[in-house]
């Protein structure tokens, strides 16, 4: 199925190309976000990714490897743009300054501000993770993918994905010790 779609797109079938974009744009955007960590850059990077995809689609030899191929392009494009714009780490605040807040008990503007601040700290901690831990974690949360699906895109084994997710969560716990809702 995917092979036929890719073959048609490679031959210039616009409907097949359109379908490829529709089916894969969502997770490609998640992958871009996992790399750059900035929602304001996702749309621009996604457009660049699809431009590169159409330029290089003819070089894709194995259509069943479309996902890892797409992920590689998305990751490299996102890295290029991310380097150009600077990483999000600048917005990191002191982890010690942020109190633990239960989002469900939020009632006042002060609580809302505190919640936003806490979210910023969580995101900063995610961005502080090494890329090989951060990317599967973000894909897991945004796409709700299984380990097998993440493994296919990242081109690693299922066991590697599981290990990276365990390490990612352990690192986050260390970074955010005492600052998350109990």
């Amino acid at each position, binding site marked *: 199925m995917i092979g036929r779609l890719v073959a048609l797109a490679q031959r210039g079938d616009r409907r097949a190309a359109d379908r490829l974009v529709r089916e894969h744009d969502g997770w490609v955007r998640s992958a871009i976000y996992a790399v750059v960590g900035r929602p304001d850059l996702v*749309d621009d990077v996604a457009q660049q990714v699809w431009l590169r995809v159409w330029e290089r689609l003819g070089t894709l030899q194995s259509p069943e490897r479309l996902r890892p191929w797409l992920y590689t392009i998305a990751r490299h494009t996102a890295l290029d743009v991310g380097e150009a714009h600077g990483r999000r780490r600048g917005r990191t605040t002191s982890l010690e300054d942020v109190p633990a807040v239960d989002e469900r008990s939020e009632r006042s503007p002060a609580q809302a501000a505190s919640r936003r601040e*806490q*979210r910023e700290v*969580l995101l900063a901690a995610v961005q502080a993770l090494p890329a090989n831990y951060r990317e599967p974690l973000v894909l897991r949360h945004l796409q709700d993918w299984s380990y097998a699906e993440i493994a296919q895109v990242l081109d690693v084994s299922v066991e590697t994905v*599981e290990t990276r997710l365990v390490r990612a*969560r*352990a690192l*986050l716990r260390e970074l955010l010790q005492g600052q998350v*809702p109990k």
Partner: protein
Amino acid sequence: MNANADRLEHLFTRALDGAASHDERDLLDTLLRDESVRARFEAYAALDDAVGGALRADFDRAAALVVTRRLGWRIGRALAMGVAACIATLIWLYPPPLPTPDHHRPQQAGSWFAPMEPPHDAVETLPATFERPQARVRGTERHWIVVPGDEPGQFMIVEVDRVRTEVTGLYEDY
């Protein structure tokens, strides 16, 4: 991290990600009877829930930004089209005066649909003593320009004397 703690973390992760097998879920249920393990799992789950929520909220901003940007683009485009339409209407109602080459030419007035005045011919009438030219090119300067006519043997001859331009009629058998 010792081996038991590592196995427990893997079990927690697999349970949270929905990857745990039936046996693993049974094992986790058994382990959760221990208060310390339960507290640890709940903290683990709370952190994961908070991180997932923060990521989803932040990522959703990307879609919201795209919608806002596209909406802004559409509004801007509509405004630009409106301004262009207004300018076109004003030009149509009040057309600018056409540039004239000299002061003798009357100014075009009225709307765009008013009939054009016939252009004034700047060519002088032929003098009564006009003689048919005998040569196409006199010396090195081209004084006579010969343009082929519609029929064979017909030509239009233009005399150029650097001061004024005269046009003659068509001559046969030139």
